[in-house]
């Protein structure tokens, strides 16, 4: 039986102050080393014995990992706390990210958890992933051979797995500038306020009058990784928006997702709710693109 009162696992602990030191520690301790940020996911996984690192490298004291700045879009340091990202995105051009973090966990988790942690843990239900996917976010990773940058959609490889090497650290998340005439929104379906998503969806779009000139759609908790639905995006882009088109698109969303049955929902339920959630989020983003609130 799992004991959640104490942490029975034994491990070494380091709290370096620079990115260079983090990479050195990860290299020195090899596969058994894990980066810890807020710990809200990792400590749970260790208590449940799903993970047993021999060494934890805490990155919360590392300088230069906590910032939010406008620079060709939005750049967020990977160890920036969810509370700070949420506060920054409130009533901003990135409001979908505000909505996603508001629905994620609870105030305690916003205080402890980081945006990079939410991504690197790679839960299929990670709430920050769908909005970041539709903002075409890129993530910057630093390792012993220097740094590399890739699209977030190429970052996730499966449930709790990513392209991150054991000796690499995520340092930055970079969102595209939304530009004019853009609207975005996020919505999730969960049992109660602080619960994990059954289905989540984010939409980013641009409109000119009744025409949608750009559209990106992403869903969470309905496949092994948070996913873009490109068939639907192509169906909508360049078209005049009518109820019937959005209804047709939502049917495709339902067909494209690959949900599973689990403790929170059945796959069948998720398919149906994914369609409705997409439709609601689409219209919300559509209205926002001309300055509407709902």
């Amino acid at each position, binding site marked *: 039986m799992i*004991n*959640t*009162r*104490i*942490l*029975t*696992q*034994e*491990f*070494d*602990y380091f*709290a370096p102050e620079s990115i260079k030191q983090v990479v050195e520690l990860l290299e020195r301790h090899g596969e058994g080393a894990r980066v*810890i940020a807020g*710990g*809200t996911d990792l*400590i*749970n996984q260790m*208590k449940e014995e799903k993970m047993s690192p021999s060494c*934890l490298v*805490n990155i*919360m004291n590392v300088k230069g990992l906590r910032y939010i700045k406008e620079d060709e879009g939005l750049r967020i340091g990977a160890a920036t706390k969810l*509370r700070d990202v949420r506060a920054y995105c409130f009533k901003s051009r990135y409001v979908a990210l505000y909505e996603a973090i*508001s629905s994620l*966990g*609870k*105030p*305690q*988790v916003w*205080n*402890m958890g980081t945006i990079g942690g939410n991504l690197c843990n790679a839960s299929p239900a990670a709430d920050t992933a769908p909005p970041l996917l539709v903002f075409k976010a890129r993530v910057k990773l630093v390792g012993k051979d220097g740094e590399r940058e890739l699209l977030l959609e190429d970052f996730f490889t499966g449930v709790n797995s990513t392209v991150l090497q054991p000796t690499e650290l995520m340092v930055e998340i970079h969102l595209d500038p939304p530009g004019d005439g853009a609207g975005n929104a996020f919505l999730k379906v969960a049992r109660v*306020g*602080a619960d994990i998503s059954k289905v989540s969806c984010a939409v980013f779009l641009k409109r000119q009058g009744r025409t949608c000139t750009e559209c990106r759609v992403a869903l969470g908790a309905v496949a092994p990784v948070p996913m873009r639905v490109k068939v639907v995006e192509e169906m909508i882009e360049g078209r005049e928006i009518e109820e019937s088109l959005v209804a047709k698109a939502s049917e495709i969303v339902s067909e494209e997702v690959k949900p599973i049955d689990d403790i929170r929902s059945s796959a069948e339920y998720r398919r149906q709710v994914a369609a409705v959630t997409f439709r609601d989020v689409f219209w919300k983003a559509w209205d926002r693109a001309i300055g509407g609130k709902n």
Partner: protein
Amino acid sequence: MNKRKVTFTVNGERHELVVEPNELLLNVLREKLGLTGTKYACGKGQCGACTVLVNGESFLSCLTLAVAVDGAEIRTIEGVAEPDGTLDPIQEAFLDSSAIQCGFCTPGMVLMGRELLNRNPRATEEEIREQIKGNLCRCTGYFSIVRAIKSCCEK
């Protein structure tokens, strides 16, 4: 495991302790410092009973490594009232509103209320409900807790 010396302030008092990396803040508070007001319930960060304030922000002490709060200022339920025993207005409000039944969620609830009021003394009912959405109470049905916190808000 590499034992480490950590220094933090708990309710205004400075403590220097040697801890193992796998010791949780919750257990250090309860067992090493004897501050049993902070409760262990789910141990998974789902119920909020273990909430403490770390540098003024609510943290789940059951998911916090003690080594990770080295240098921090921590406030537990024992440090909410004045040293002479005078209750904090929010504690008075919990009594006045009958917001306590079994009392197990109360330390977390009071600290969540305190954090909210420190940040936003004019919080609305919606903001109060959002603030305590991760703290479970099996007795009161939450109404009296919301009422208690609301009564401490400036109009």
